[in-house]
């Protein structure tokens, strides 16, 4: 229901078949797993025990998910490094 709500927050999106949120949910799970794995690798490389936004902002992630770069919104506290890079 939450996924459907997010999808329909976009005014252009019309009707959604019942099975669609199931597919999006699975794709999201895989995407998040992918993102976590890549970020964890960077956390390990830097010898840190706490994963933070700097690890998530690294160029490895940026290169791994180029499609996301132009879609990520500005957060209240900080801007992702790769968003700033992209804007330059």
């Amino acid at each position, binding site marked *: 229901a*939450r*996924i459907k*709500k*997010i*999808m*329909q*927050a*976009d005014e*252009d*999106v*019309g*009707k*959604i*078949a019942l*099975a*669609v949120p*199931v*597919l*999006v*949910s*699975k*794709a*999201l*799970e*895989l*995407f*998040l*797993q992918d*993102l*976590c*794995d890549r*970020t*964890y690798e960077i*956390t390990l490389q830097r010898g840190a*025990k*706490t*994963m*933070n*936004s700097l*690890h*998530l*902002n690294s160029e490895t992630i940026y290169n791994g*998910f*180029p*499609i*996301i770069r132009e*879609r*990520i*919104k*500005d*957060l*209240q*506290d*900080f801007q*992702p490094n790769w968003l700033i890079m992209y804007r330059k």
Partner: protein
Amino acid sequence: MEPMDIVGKSKEDASLPKATMTKIIKEMLPPDVRVARDAQDLLIECCVEFINLVSSESNEVCNREDKRTIAPEHVLKALQVLGFGEYIEEVYAAYEQHKLETMQDSLRGGGGGGKWNNGAEMTEEEALAEQQRMFAEARARMNGGAIASKQPDADQSLDS
């Protein structure tokens, strides 16, 4: 779409539940790894953006095919277009599983009211006994109806 006020909270409140997402993120990582608050927020933000991205691309695929409703095939095509082709196999498997479960639910009479949903848990003997009881009830109703309908005829014959 309007800008975010707080992480994961838009004006329409179309966001992912923070506590649930945090739990999922922690389950995806080794137990010894801590996740900073800002990283959690950004991960959740990425997830919301991923949904927006997939839905808008699915919508475009849907429009190109002159359809009014976004169907599962449109989502699969959108994933391919967006460069998430490696997800398709597992996503399709999840879709097949969902179809199977939906079919099983409908065969069991899922959603048809609590009274009938217990049928799947009945033993054969219980089901047979229930069937006999229902037959008996129906027979009694029919017999009762037949007697009631025959009654006026009997009265008429008495009058004449």
